Protein backbone atom coordinates (compact mmCIF):
# COMPACT_ATOMS: atom_id res chain seq x y z
CA UNK A 1 0.00 0.00 0.00
CA UNK A 2 1.18 3.51 -0.78
CA UNK A 3 2.32 6.09 1.75
CA UNK A 4 0.48 8.84 -0.08
CA UNK A 5 -2.56 8.78 -2.31
CA UNK A 6 -4.22 11.59 -4.21
CA UNK A 7 -7.93 11.94 -4.72
CA UNK A 8 -9.61 12.18 -7.17
CA UNK A 9 -7.60 10.24 -9.74
CA UNK A 10 -8.89 12.54 -12.48
CA UNK A 11 -10.62 15.91 -12.46
CA UNK A 12 -12.06 17.89 -15.34
CA UNK A 13 -13.16 21.51 -14.93
CA UNK A 14 -13.83 24.62 -16.97
CA UNK A 15 -11.36 27.46 -17.20
CA UNK A 16 -11.91 29.95 -14.40
CA UNK A 17 -13.22 27.35 -11.95
CA UNK A 18 -11.35 26.25 -8.87
CA UNK A 19 -9.74 22.83 -8.68
CA UNK A 20 -9.29 20.95 -5.42
CA UNK A 21 -7.33 17.76 -5.02
CA UNK A 22 -6.54 15.85 -1.87
CA UNK A 23 -3.70 13.76 -0.56
CA UNK A 24 -3.87 11.25 2.26
CA UNK A 25 -0.90 9.53 3.84
CA UNK A 26 -0.27 6.81 6.38
CA UNK A 27 2.78 7.52 8.53
CA UNK A 28 3.99 10.67 10.25
CA UNK A 29 5.81 13.19 8.11
CA UNK A 30 8.00 16.25 8.65
CA UNK A 31 6.60 18.00 5.62
CA UNK A 32 4.55 17.43 2.51
CA UNK A 33 5.33 18.69 -0.97
CA UNK A 34 3.20 19.12 -4.07
CA UNK A 35 4.57 18.73 -7.57
CA UNK A 36 3.12 19.26 -11.04
CA UNK A 37 3.94 17.18 -14.11
CA UNK A 38 3.01 18.27 -17.59
CA UNK A 39 2.47 15.44 -20.06
CA UNK A 40 5.74 13.76 -21.01
CA UNK A 41 7.85 16.06 -18.83
CA UNK A 42 9.60 16.04 -15.49
CA UNK A 43 8.05 17.12 -12.22
CA UNK A 44 8.09 20.71 -11.03
CA UNK A 45 8.01 21.62 -7.36
CA UNK A 46 5.00 23.74 -6.39
CA UNK A 47 4.96 24.14 -2.64
CA UNK A 48 6.22 22.63 0.61
CA UNK A 49 4.21 22.71 3.81
CA UNK A 50 5.79 21.74 7.11
CA UNK A 51 4.08 19.53 9.65
CA UNK A 52 3.61 22.48 12.04
CA UNK A 53 1.89 24.60 9.38
CA UNK A 54 -1.81 24.43 8.59
CA UNK A 55 -2.05 26.51 5.46
CA UNK A 56 0.26 27.97 2.87
CA UNK A 57 -0.27 30.13 -0.21
CA UNK A 58 1.71 30.63 -3.39
CA UNK A 59 0.08 32.71 -6.10
CA UNK A 60 -3.11 30.91 -7.13
CA UNK A 61 -2.20 27.87 -5.04
CA UNK A 62 -3.45 27.20 -1.55
CA UNK A 63 -2.31 24.15 0.38
CA UNK A 64 -3.69 22.94 3.68
CA UNK A 65 -2.38 20.25 5.97
CA UNK A 66 -4.26 18.40 8.69
CA UNK A 67 -1.82 16.14 10.50
CA UNK A 68 -4.54 14.71 12.74
CA UNK A 69 -6.32 13.38 9.67
CA UNK A 70 -3.09 12.73 7.79
CA UNK A 71 -4.35 14.66 4.80
CA UNK A 72 -3.55 17.66 2.65
CA UNK A 73 -5.41 19.54 -0.03
CA UNK A 74 -4.23 21.60 -2.98
CA UNK A 75 -6.55 24.30 -4.28
CA UNK A 76 -5.90 26.01 -7.61
CA UNK A 77 -8.04 29.10 -7.96
CA UNK A 78 -9.20 30.61 -11.25
CA UNK A 79 -7.79 27.70 -13.23
CA UNK A 80 -6.30 28.14 -16.69
CA UNK A 81 -5.81 25.74 -19.57
CA UNK A 82 -2.09 25.81 -18.76
CA UNK A 83 -2.85 24.22 -15.38
CA UNK A 84 -3.71 20.99 -17.19
CA UNK A 85 -1.24 18.48 -15.74
CA UNK A 86 -0.86 15.70 -13.21
CA UNK A 87 -0.40 16.74 -9.62
CA UNK A 88 1.49 14.63 -7.12
CA UNK A 89 1.95 14.88 -3.41
CA UNK A 90 5.22 13.71 -1.92
CA UNK A 91 4.92 12.42 1.61
CA UNK A 92 8.34 11.28 2.78
CA UNK A 93 8.11 9.29 6.00
CA UNK A 94 10.39 10.73 8.63
CA UNK A 95 14.00 10.00 7.83
CA UNK A 96 13.23 8.46 4.49
CA UNK A 97 13.22 9.48 0.87
CA UNK A 98 10.37 10.80 -1.20
CA UNK A 99 7.32 8.68 -1.85
CA UNK A 100 4.97 10.02 -4.49
CA UNK A 101 1.30 9.23 -4.68
CA UNK A 102 -0.27 8.09 -7.98
CA UNK A 103 -1.35 11.64 -8.79
CA UNK A 104 -4.45 13.54 -9.83
CA UNK A 105 -4.82 14.21 -13.57
CA UNK A 106 -6.34 17.67 -13.96
CA UNK A 107 -7.89 18.78 -17.24
CA UNK A 108 -8.88 22.43 -17.57
CA UNK A 109 -11.16 22.94 -20.53
CA UNK A 110 -11.13 26.30 -22.36
Amino acid sequence: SQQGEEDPQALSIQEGENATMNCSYKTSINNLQWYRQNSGRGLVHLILIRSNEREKHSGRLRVTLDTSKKSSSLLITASRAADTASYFCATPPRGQNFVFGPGTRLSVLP
Partner: protein
Amino acid sequence: DAMVIQNPRYQVTQFGKPVTLSCSQTLNHNVMYWYQQKSSQAPKLLFHYYDKDFNNEADTPDNFQSRRPNTSFCFLDIRSPGLGDAAMYLCATSTGQGSYNEQFFGPGTRLTVL
Protein backbone atom coordinates in the same frame (compact mmCIF):
# COMPACT_ATOMS: atom_id res chain seq x y z
CA ASP B 1 19.92 28.82 -16.56
CA ALA B 2 20.82 26.19 -14.01
CA MET B 3 19.11 22.97 -14.88
CA VAL B 4 18.93 19.20 -15.03
CA ILE B 5 19.49 17.73 -18.47
CA GLN B 6 18.68 14.23 -19.60
CA ASN B 7 19.88 12.58 -22.78
CA PRO B 8 18.51 11.19 -24.88
CA ARG B 9 14.88 12.24 -24.50
CA TYR B 10 13.74 9.09 -26.28
CA GLN B 11 15.61 5.81 -26.31
CA VAL B 12 14.68 2.62 -28.12
CA THR B 13 16.47 -0.60 -27.31
CA GLN B 14 15.99 -4.29 -27.95
CA PHE B 15 15.07 -6.87 -25.40
CA GLY B 16 18.24 -7.84 -23.54
CA LYS B 17 20.45 -5.17 -25.13
CA PRO B 18 22.21 -3.01 -22.51
CA VAL B 19 21.30 0.64 -22.48
CA THR B 20 22.65 3.70 -20.67
CA LEU B 21 20.71 6.83 -19.85
CA SER B 22 22.52 9.99 -18.82
CA CYS B 23 21.78 12.93 -16.59
CA SER B 24 23.76 16.08 -16.02
CA GLN B 25 23.17 19.07 -13.79
CA THR B 26 24.46 22.60 -13.58
CA LEU B 27 22.96 23.20 -10.12
CA ASN B 28 25.98 21.78 -8.28
CA HIS B 29 23.66 19.78 -6.05
CA ASN B 30 25.01 17.07 -3.80
CA VAL B 31 22.22 14.58 -4.33
CA MET B 32 21.11 12.96 -7.57
CA TYR B 33 18.16 10.59 -7.92
CA TRP B 34 16.86 8.19 -10.52
CA TYR B 35 13.14 7.46 -10.71
CA GLN B 36 11.19 5.07 -12.90
CA GLN B 37 7.69 6.17 -13.90
CA LYS B 38 5.33 3.88 -15.76
CA SER B 39 2.27 5.17 -17.56
CA SER B 40 -0.24 6.88 -15.24
CA GLN B 41 1.73 5.84 -12.17
CA ALA B 42 3.74 7.60 -9.51
CA PRO B 43 7.48 8.04 -9.96
CA LYS B 44 9.26 5.24 -8.13
CA LEU B 45 12.68 5.89 -6.63
CA LEU B 46 15.33 3.45 -7.88
CA PHE B 47 18.42 4.84 -6.12
CA HIS B 48 20.20 8.03 -5.23
CA TYR B 49 23.69 9.37 -4.66
CA TYR B 50 24.70 11.70 -1.88
CA ASP B 51 27.98 12.90 -3.29
CA LYS B 52 29.68 9.60 -4.08
CA ASP B 53 27.68 7.55 -1.60
CA PHE B 54 25.32 5.23 -3.45
CA ASN B 55 21.97 4.33 -1.90
CA ASN B 56 19.92 1.59 -3.49
CA GLU B 57 16.22 1.16 -2.76
CA ALA B 58 15.50 -2.29 -1.40
CA ASP B 59 13.19 -3.29 -4.23
CA THR B 60 15.28 -1.97 -7.14
CA PRO B 61 16.10 -4.92 -9.43
CA ASP B 62 19.76 -5.90 -9.85
CA ASN B 63 19.30 -5.27 -13.57
CA PHE B 64 19.57 -1.54 -12.78
CA GLN B 65 22.93 -0.01 -11.98
CA SER B 66 24.15 3.54 -11.62
CA ARG B 67 27.38 5.48 -11.85
CA ARG B 68 28.25 8.97 -10.75
CA PRO B 69 31.72 9.83 -12.00
CA ASN B 70 31.57 13.44 -10.78
CA THR B 71 29.19 15.96 -9.23
CA SER B 72 27.63 16.91 -12.55
CA PHE B 73 26.92 13.57 -14.18
CA CYS B 74 24.98 10.48 -13.27
CA PHE B 75 24.23 7.44 -15.43
CA LEU B 76 21.58 4.75 -15.29
CA ASP B 77 22.62 1.43 -16.79
CA ILE B 78 20.06 -1.24 -17.56
CA ARG B 79 22.02 -4.41 -18.13
CA SER B 80 19.39 -6.56 -19.81
CA PRO B 81 16.22 -4.59 -20.48
CA GLY B 82 12.98 -6.48 -20.40
CA LEU B 83 9.61 -5.43 -21.78
CA GLY B 84 8.59 -4.46 -18.26
CA ASP B 85 11.37 -1.88 -18.09
CA ALA B 86 9.73 0.32 -20.69
CA ALA B 87 9.00 3.53 -18.82
CA MET B 88 9.92 7.16 -18.36
CA TYR B 89 13.15 7.54 -16.39
CA LEU B 90 13.46 10.73 -14.43
CA CYS B 91 16.61 12.21 -12.97
CA ALA B 92 16.35 14.67 -10.11
CA THR B 93 18.70 16.62 -7.88
CA SER B 94 18.56 18.30 -4.52
CA THR B 95 20.93 20.24 -2.32
CA GLY B 96 20.78 17.66 0.45
CA GLN B 97 19.19 14.45 1.54
CA GLY B 98 16.02 14.43 3.53
CA SER B 99 12.47 15.43 3.06
CA TYR B 100 12.91 19.21 3.45
CA ASN B 101 14.80 19.50 0.22
CA GLU B 102 12.98 20.41 -2.97
CA GLN B 103 13.83 18.13 -5.85
CA PHE B 104 14.62 19.50 -9.31
CA PHE B 105 13.70 17.18 -12.14
CA GLY B 106 14.99 16.75 -15.65
CA PRO B 107 12.56 16.29 -18.57
CA GLY B 108 12.96 12.53 -18.51
CA THR B 109 14.01 9.83 -20.97
CA ARG B 110 11.28 7.66 -22.38
CA LEU B 111 12.59 4.14 -22.89
CA THR B 112 10.98 1.75 -25.35
CA VAL B 113 11.98 -1.91 -25.33
CA LEU B 114 11.29 -3.89 -28.51
